[in-house]
């Protein structure tokens, strides 16, 4: 029996989601750092 092919569309969505998470998280993090210490 032939193995099912890896779903390329799902992979693309997953990597887009990972990229979006990294970009949004990184932007927020850099904004927080630019505002300086608050301790």
């Amino acid at each position, binding site marked *: 029996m032939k193995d099912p092919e*890896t779903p390329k569309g799902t*992979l693309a969505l*997953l990597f887009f989601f*990972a990229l979006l*998470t*990294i970009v949004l*998280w990184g932007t927020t*993090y850099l904004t*927080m*750092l630019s*505002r*300086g*210490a*608050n*301790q």
Partner: protein
Amino acid sequence: MSEPIAVEESNLPDLHVDWYEATWMRLSVIMMVIFLLAVIAASTAFGIQVPGAFRRIKPDEVMAKGSPFADPGLRELAPGKYEAYIRAATWSFTPNEIHVPVGSTVTFYVTSLDVQHGFKIMDTNINMMILPGQISTLTAHFDKPGTYNLICHEYCGAASPTYGHQTMYGQIFVEEKPKASS
């Protein structure tokens, strides 16, 4: 001499993990580790902290003689270093205007007379929950001149559509001139 240990065959099914799935799981773990390290670096190397309870105060003693909140406002501790005692109550901050020179470091001490309030200074990392019975504190450094809006961002009720939580705000004026008052 001990008997050799008999190895029994496992009844567990052979769990095949696809290469893509394994890669995705590894990537997720790596991202979480990087995010965690970045948060640790922010809190230790860059001094960004979450607000802490400075100490407790009974709400009915906030206005008592000798309480710093009975006469709230800005106090200069040293040139460029201030502390601001601010009282939150439905639906205002007292004082609601603070003037400091650019380059100042201000430590905010805030408490509530009645219900839960919020204390957020826009464009800074100052973001605190203000609870009755507790003094919340954070320190900010104002390097850029301008007007910083200060808002209550914890819903605290409303008397009317034009007066309530939505009108509870203040302003911090960071001025070029070396003059401070509240």
